[in-house]
């Protein structure tokens, strides 16, 4: 019965993706705490007040999956909320209208960047195919061969919380490009709390920090 009432997902999309909160057709009752906080932050920004940095307290009651994602080359650093799950693909959206899709801990797509990763696929243990659009909108792909290397123990902090995790590095090469991804993994649960993953030649790396579930 989707048609009869927009789901909570839409509420988030609308309140996060739009320029003004008036677009929130689903009404305040459905708006998530995260969304409310973001709107408050945006209002604060407009009035010249610096938004408060993220704190554990501010995200303690958030139900949706959230992540802090930054792309230094694109000047992106913000809070992202998971708004869609399609199979094992989880798509995170921020208030700037950008999305990152993660499948099995790997970044497989971006949208809203100047040079998006359209899709990423793996075959076997090593082979990776990254797909892009050229400025003429033609499909282009780069095939990489990847190797995991070294495991070291590393203590990192994600929004006031310390983790002792195993850091794994992954080297990928193609005839034209090469990059290194890093993953910080919990020994106990196997969960990847933080990763640094390559997007495209123009955009470089994204740093993804998972903030809750």
């Amino acid at each position, binding site marked *: 019965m989707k048609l009869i009432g927009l789901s909570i997902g839409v509420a988030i999309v609308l309140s996060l993706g739009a320029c003004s909160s008036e677009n929130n057709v689903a009404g305040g009752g459905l708006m998530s705490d995260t969304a409310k906080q973001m709107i408050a932050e945006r209002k604060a920004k407009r009035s010249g007040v610096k938004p408060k940095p993220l704190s554990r307290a501010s995200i303690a009651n958030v139900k949706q999956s959230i992540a802090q994602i930054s792309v230094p080359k694109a000047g992106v650093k913000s809070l992202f909320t998971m708004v869609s799950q399609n199979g094992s693909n989880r798509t995170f959206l921020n208030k700037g209208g950008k999305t990152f899709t993660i499948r099995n801990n790997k970044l497989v797509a971006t949208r809203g960047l*100047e040079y998006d990763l359209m899709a990423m696929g793996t075959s076997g243990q090593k082979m990776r195919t990254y797909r892009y659009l050229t400025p003429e909108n033609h499909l282009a792909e780069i095939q990489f061969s990847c190797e995991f290397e070294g495991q070291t123990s590393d203590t990192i902090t994600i929004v006031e919380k310390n983790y002792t995790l195993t850091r794994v590095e992954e080297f990928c090469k193609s005839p034209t490009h090469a990059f290194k991804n890093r993953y910080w993994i919990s020994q106990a649960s196997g969960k990847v709390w933080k990763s640094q993953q390559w997007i495209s030649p123009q955009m470089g790396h994204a740093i993804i920090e998972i903030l809750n579930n």
Partner: protein
Amino acid sequence: MNMFGTSGLIDMPSAESQPDAEFSTTISSFAGSVRGTFTFQVTPRLSGTFRYTKIDNWVFDNETYDRSFDFQYRLLDETEFRPALAIGLRDFMGTGIYSGQYIVATKNITPKLKVTGGVGWGRFSNSDDIQVYREGNLGGKPSIDDWFSGPAGFFGGVEWQTPVKGLRAKVEYSSDKYAIENTLDRDENFPNRRSEITFDRKSPLNFGLEYSRNSSYSVGLYYMYGSEVGLRFTTSLNPKTGGRGIRDSAPLPITPRARPVDRSTDWQSVDNINAKGRKQLNTLLNKEGLVVESLALSANRAELRVRNERYITTAQAYGRAARAMAFVMPDSVDTFVITPVEQGLPVASMTINRDQLEKFENDPNGIVKSARAFDLSDARKLPSIGELDPELYPDFTWSLAPYVSIKVFDSDDPFAITGGLRLRGDLDISPGFSISGSISKKLIKNDFEPSPSESNLPAVRTDIGQYNRQGDPSLDRLTADYLFKLSPAVYGRVSAGYLEKMYGGVSAEVLYKPVEQNWGLGAEINYVKQRDFDMRLGFRDYSVVTGHVSGYLDMNNGFALQLDAGRYLAGDVGATFSIDRTFDNGWKVGAYATLTDVPAEDFGEGSFDKGVRMEIPLSWAIGTSSKKTVNNTLTSLTRDGGARLNVENRLYPIVKDYHTNAVSGSWGRFWR
């Protein structure tokens, strides 16, 4: 790049080509002459050049500026043992001060050293005896008889990549004697031209240093002909590789339906289900530049008609509409049909299987798979259960905005600008039926005025000066337009009123263009009367029946052809041939020529109507989607032969962007 803005040494050409589709702009100066040059690499082998020259105290055929065109074609590629070989025509049309032909070879001897040698005629002939002006020549036609004939000269040189990164040194032996520049010409028989001695050519040797750190610019400093210093600056861009990335907001992610899919259709009993659905879709789509016209929702199929107000790449409009449908439509709906509506005309229909849409979103090869799976067909009829959004018609919109119109590289003036305020109004009465008009008031006047007609033809266009002077404020246009479908693949248009600045009357057009076909056929007929010079409501005496049969062909290789044959405004009969290189991001670079039964003598200067044109999508420059383009046409002089009516809403450009060729060329954008 050389001083003539083409691939080459210093003043001489080389056999190299620029990268395919490269668009280079060069400004160079030496010995009192300034040249502005645009070179476009039309194909990997063929380049075309337009040049605009001013020489101190010179007059060319009564004009201060000389315009010239070149072509160069690379016949052979360089191999390990063989040099690249190219043939070129410089200044093959127009008044011909730089006319010359050459065959040239270039070979990379070592990675750092390049050698070029060639033989040339005309300007390249190393001779004082070169024909540039011919008595009674109207210009505008190639003088084929003189090509590759007469004395020949040899030229050549070397280019060395210095150890300093980006810095190159060049030495050349020039076979251009600059004979005209070394002659005082004040022939009383030709009072409309004059050349003066601009410099003293003491030596055939030129030396230069060039610097460039990337492909987007290069600068050169030269010591030329033993007496002069030359400067050159070139900047390049490429529609295929350059431009800003598109930074549109991310599309809605697709949330798949829960499995097993809920087949319940209880929702059908809800009142005004189509209106509710339209409203929810609009909530999502209006922010994305799309407007829902109608929705026809049945148990497992939803047909959406939607206006695209933002995406020049229509695949993206289809994609965004599909994502919104996946968000809003009840689970039992398995099939989405998206019919874009342009100016009230349903132009195509895309049928999408919802399961596949959900599946392909994150499929590593989803772009290719979806291109095969989603079906594009001629626009479907609106199902009987579908209803148009009653709020869309009638709809009145207006705008008051400043405008500027810039005319560049005219033979009398490199840059002319007019501007002012323009009031526009549009009343959409029903789908396809509208009344629209515009009035403008000039604030900056710098009007272009062609030399008056000397021909026997009625002055159908050469009176433009009168209109520009007297028509202020002017009624630019006021028409009623009706666009409609005769059959799934046949489109029609009827327009009546003040069709354009200089003519009013009635115009009717039909177009046959099935969606999947790469060609179309059209016909247009108009009865028009010339408007009064004051550009108000009155008419002058001249009236004419004018019309064309048009053929359109997308050659599927990046080139598009158009042929329009028929009767022109002056009653002359003939055809216009156009060719454009088209890029899938909306760039277009092309040329056209019109030949009619008007003899060259009657046509006047230029001999026949021709021009080059260019269309740049605004999105390419600003980095967000927009349907706007920046257009520039460089034509020969305004004359009365081969003149066409400028009626708006011609059908082919309205429909073709939604058809298979255009959509599949940019298919990846469906998913952005």
